[in-house]
């Protein structure tokens, strides 16, 4: 540490001294004022570099200044200490110090000291939401400094006034004061950086995005030239906030992460929390609602505890919007009412307008249209009306659409589009175009409406293209489906089957297609490619620790009975670990740059080229609560828009799963008791046939192979076991499945390495002893297979063995926790192989069989994005998969697998599986035993 002016004493030395030693220090100083000024300067610097040390050393400085009885030194020491306290969010302590300083300065009648104190008051008062008091102090400081011709300090006073005006929602006044300050203070990089940052925030309030971004970037450049990491972190966070509001979500997340890494070691939890709340706003925009709720919740606790009134109210507004998106409308209303009341309490008008507009959205969702409109009136007529005009117009357009006032809705939207076109954020633009499309449709202008909805979708796709993470893209599209669904409904009305098909494909497993094309990063790849960045290295270390703990948790879960007390605790721990791992992966990925490659969805013509002439495709979808299907056969597209209700689909899926579980529980039954279970299962599978197969059958009955692209819950349904009262569908056709039609050519184009060797991995135990038999039998049937058994089947050995394989067969235990699809896993000899481990495999187009429980189950997110082992294996390069929909019976699975591999069949793996299933069902009539497996890809 530098010594104080004229001495070699540091604040740390001073802190360690006894009273006698301090008195001696003053006595021996040639210039006590210079000594104290030097120590005060040290405290000021420490505030920016080591806040904890600064707050702990401050009392020693104040004590020394009091002992010296030098007025300006006593005032300076207190003002500087109060500044440190404010930075540490200890505002009450800061105000007490300043009251003392004010008394000392007033008694001495020194105008400069008085000005110094008044200026120091501004920050803690403003942070506590006492804006009027803060303005009074700042104006007093400016006047006092001007009266003594200290124009630099007067400029700092203007800077503070700008901050307060902005906090209370008067951005124009704020910018005026910042400009005054900047004109006097250019040249001091740190000060200039702070002023540019503040000015940018005010510009942001006025939706002057481009000017704001320029100011933020100037601030970042200036701060980068100074040692003020904290200031840099805050501006990075502010820029991230700006980018998020503009819909540049990926860039926003990257800057938030940079800021967060810089903030992590900081001792000002309030600012980190503010940053967290702003980051949560972006998460909300991306559609990661659960993550946003959690981040808002964590931030709010800190903001409330440290008295950040304005920031807390803003976070509360975000939380209310999340609750509304989750359908918790009453809770949302209460949260937003509180936010509005908090903003009103501190006279923060911009925030109040935001809270009122958010509340109006909730009222609209509740159907309280008049109340919602009245709130938009309040905002429009308030002094924020002109700033919030776009948000007001969007809300009013939605209200008018609900009221079927289409022409007025159109006028409202057009007024914004015509005047604000250049400055509109892409997110807003997409919304406005969609509203415009709906309004045009209401007015009977169908073609124009379709064009606008398509334009809206183009905006959504453009934003989607900027998002680089698997989760981000999935969440984003899943959250923006309304225009796509509307377009689908319009195509259905026209009975345009080709168009219906193309719209379905534009929303079906799109991110999986991107993943398979290699265009976005996968969780595990992020971790493997550590760049040695210090901030990143500790995140990677933490991630490794969490993943090890998660694997141990899987081990403990294995074999634990479903009703045992510890199981729920272990499952809960597993979910928490999974959540923390996903958050860390997201943070590590945020600052990486990956190539952007997009898998384009297939169009109708492309599909016709991709399908062999003897194949029929059945692709299911949901529109307006009804399950429909497109059948594609011989270049013909036929659509059925209403096969059964979505609710009935869910019930049917659950009933089939129930009968499967009953069948497995009754495995030891025989005679009438066993027949009863077969009868029950067949009855449900007959319902499946009647609802989803029979109405389509005339269109595909000449085909010799069916490909099914399910939708939503139907991904858990064994279509091959659909029963027509006489036979099962698989007895008439081999079936294969695909997450979407767009994946068909992708899977077929995969670099097949069928000539590669076969790898059989078998991990048997006392619960499933037939695994060993199966593995040995397959190794013999498939010849020259690499056999990895039991303890030899380690994760490392598997990684190495599969790299050049043409076929990989896993016979082992599997698990799929439905609430936590990233915890889907297969048991190996040394550990569990999770979804993340599978992502890291290099499969090079091989065929994969997962002869294990539930290995083909997936959590199906909006947009039919599958999360589980299927996604992981396809992403790792598998060209086809045979895997299971439910828990599999050890003995019947061995039998099925042995039969299947003996039936080497040129027609492909789906045909091999179908042959084996037909043989098995001859003597194992219950579908629980013969029907769990299905084939993805493998059509020929």
């Amino acid at each position, binding site marked *: 540490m530098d010594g104080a002016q004229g001495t070699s004493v540091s604040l740390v030395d001073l802190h360690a001294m006894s009273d006698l030693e301090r008195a001696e220090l003053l006595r021996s100083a040639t210039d006590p004022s210079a000594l104290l000024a030097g120590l005060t300067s040290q405290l000021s610097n420490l505030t920016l570099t080591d806040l904890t040390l600064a707050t702990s050393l401050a009392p020693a400085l104040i004590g020394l200044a009091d002992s010296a009885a030098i007025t300006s030194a006593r005032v300076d020491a207190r003002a500087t200490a109060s500044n440190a306290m404010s930075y540490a969010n200890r505002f009450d302590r800061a105000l007490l110090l300043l009251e003392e300083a004010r008394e000392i300065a007033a008694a001495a009648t020194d105008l400069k000291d008085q000005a110094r104190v008044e200026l120091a008051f501004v920050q803690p008062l403003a942070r506590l939401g006492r804006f009027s008091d803060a303005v009074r102090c700042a104006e007093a400081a400016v006047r006092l400094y001007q009266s003594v011709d200290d124009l630099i300090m007067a400029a700092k006073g203007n800077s503070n006034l700008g901050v307060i005006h902005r906090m209370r929602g008067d951005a124009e006044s704020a910018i005026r004061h910042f400009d005054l300050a900047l004109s006097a203070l250019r040249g001091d990089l740190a000060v200039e950086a702070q002023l540019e940052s503040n000015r940018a925030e005010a510009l942001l309030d006025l939706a002057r995005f481009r000017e704001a971004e320029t100011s933020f970037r100037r601030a970042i450049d200036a701060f980068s030239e100074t040692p003020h990491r904290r200031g840099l972190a805050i501006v990075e966070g502010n820029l991230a906030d700006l980018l998020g509001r503009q819909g540049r979500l990926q860039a926003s997340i990257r800057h938030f992460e940079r800021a967060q890494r810089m903030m992590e070691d900081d001792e000002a939890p309030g600012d980190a929390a503010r940053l967290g709340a702003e980051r949560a706003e972006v998460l909300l925009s991306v559609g990661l609602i659960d993550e946003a709720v959690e981040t808002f919740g964590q931030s709010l606790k800190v903001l409330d505890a440290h008295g950040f009134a304005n920031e807390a109210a803003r976070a509360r507004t975000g939380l209310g919007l999340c609750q509304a998106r989750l359908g918790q409308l009453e809770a949302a209303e209460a949260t937003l009412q509180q936010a509005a009341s908090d903003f009103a309490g501190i006279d923060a008008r911009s925030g109040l307008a935001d809270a009122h507009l958010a509340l109006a959205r909730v009222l609209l969702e509740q159907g309280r249209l008049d109340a919602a409109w009245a709130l938009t009136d309040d905002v429009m007529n308030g002094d924020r009306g002109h700033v919030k005009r776009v948000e007001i117009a969007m809300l009013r357009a939605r209200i008018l659409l609900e009221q079927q006032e289409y022409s007025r809705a159109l006028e409202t939207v057009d007024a914004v589009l015509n005047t604000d076109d250049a400055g509109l954020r892409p997110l807003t633009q997409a919304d406005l175009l969609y509203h415009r499309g709906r309004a045009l449709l209401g007015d009977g202008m169908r073609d124009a409406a379709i064009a606008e909805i398509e334009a809206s979708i183009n905006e959504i796709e453009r934003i989607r293209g900027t998002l680089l993470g698997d989760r981000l893209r999935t969440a984003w599209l899943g959250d923006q489906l309304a225009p796509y669904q509307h377009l689908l409904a319009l195509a259905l009305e026209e009975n345009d089957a080709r168009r219906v098909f193309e719209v379905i494909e534009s929303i079906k497993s799109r991110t999986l297609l991107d993943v398979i094309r290699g265009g976005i990063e996968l969780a595990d790849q992020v971790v493997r490619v550590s760049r040695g960045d210090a901030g990143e290295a500790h995140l990677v270390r933490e991630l490794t620790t969490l993943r090890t703990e998660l694997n141990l948790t899987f081990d403990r*879960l*294995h*074999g*634990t*009975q*479903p*009703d045992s007390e510890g199981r*729920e605790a272990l499952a809960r721990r597993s979910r928490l670990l999974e959540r923390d791992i996903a958050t860390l992966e997201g943070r590590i990925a945020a600052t990486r740059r990956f190539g952007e490659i997009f898998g384009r969805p297939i169009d109708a013509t492309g599909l016709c080229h991709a399908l062999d002439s003897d194949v029929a495709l059945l692709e299911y979808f949901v529109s307006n609560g009804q399950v429909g299907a497109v059948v594609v056969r011989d270049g013909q597209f036929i659509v059925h828009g209403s096969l059964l209700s979505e609710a009935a689909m869910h019930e049917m899926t*659950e*009933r089939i799963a*129930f009968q499967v*579980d*009953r069948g*497995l*529980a*009754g*495995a030891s039954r025989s005679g009438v008791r066993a027949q*009863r279970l077969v009868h*029950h299962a067949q*009855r449900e599978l007959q319902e499946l046939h009647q609802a989803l197969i029979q109405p389509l059958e005339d269109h595909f009955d000449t085909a010799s192979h069916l490909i099914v692209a399910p939708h939503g819950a139907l991904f858990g349904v064994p279509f091959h076991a659909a029963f027509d009262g006489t036979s099962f569908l698989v007895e008439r056709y081999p079936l294969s499945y695909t997450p979407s039609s767009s994946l068909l050519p992708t899977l077929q184009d995969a670099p097949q390495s069928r000539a590669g060797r076969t790898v059989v991995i078998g991990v048997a135990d*006392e*619960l*499933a002893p037939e*695994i060993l038999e199966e593995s040995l039998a397959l190794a013999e049937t498939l010849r020259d297979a690499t056999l990895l058994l039991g303890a030899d089947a380690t994760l490392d050995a598997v990684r190495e063995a599969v790299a050049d394989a043409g076929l990989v067969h896993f*016979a*082992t*235990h*599997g*698990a*799929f*926790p*439905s*609430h936590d699809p990233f915890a889907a896993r297969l048991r190996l000899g040394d550990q569990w192989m999770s979804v993340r481990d599978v992502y890291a495999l290099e499969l090079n187009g091989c065929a994969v069989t997962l*002869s*294990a*429980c*539930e290995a083909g189950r997936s959590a199906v997110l909006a947009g039919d994005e599958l999360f589980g082992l299927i996604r992981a294996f396809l992403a790792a390069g598998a060209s086809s998969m045979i895997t299971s929909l439910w*828990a*599999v*019976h*050890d*003995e019947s*699975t061995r039998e099925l697998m042995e039969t299947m591999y003996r039936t080497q069949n040129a027609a492909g793996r789906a045909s091999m599986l179908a042959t084996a299933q037909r043989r098995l069902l001859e003597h194992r009539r219950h579908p629980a035993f013969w029907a769990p497996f299905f084939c993805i890809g493998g059509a020929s």
Partner: protein
Amino acid sequence: MNADHNITFETIVGHVTGELPADQSATLAQQAEANASLARMIAAIRSVITALREPQDNPTEAALARARQLIDLQVGVLPFGFEPAGLVIAELVEDTRDPSSMYGLRGEATAYQLSFEADYAEVHLHVTSEAGGNCRVRGQVDVFEPSNDDIRVALRRSGREALIETEADDTGQFKLEVEPATYDVIVSVGLRTLLVPSVEIG
């Protein structure tokens, strides 16, 4: 369970029907000698099982009185529409919570299933834990002989009178969502009532 002893209803029924292992049965008999409440309960259950599990066109007044005694003792007042005269206690025949039930499966059980049988019907329960902490019970009542009787299912939490009630569909299936606890499962098939006492759910 009972305030005067901690023997479950199922254990007593097992003792009465001879399904309890001999050593446990002997211990129970010894306990009953020293515990009047337990002895009364064993006697009541034995008499009702004897009286009502045999097909009888016209149960005697005494048998009905004993049935009511049992109902008061164990079930409390049956809800309206559940006919005490035809009461039958069902036996547990499948329980996937038994560790041996995992044998032969290549995975972990996340739900558990229980099956109970009486002479004319089987009740199957499939229990899963919901994220919010409640339990989802999907079940099916199989009536062995063809029957058009309506099937009603009620769950009564031990020690409480309130019922969680539903009607089974035409395939005998039903579903309920309940808090984890011990319940009596009461099933009515026409005029007959089947009781599955003290089922732990969750």
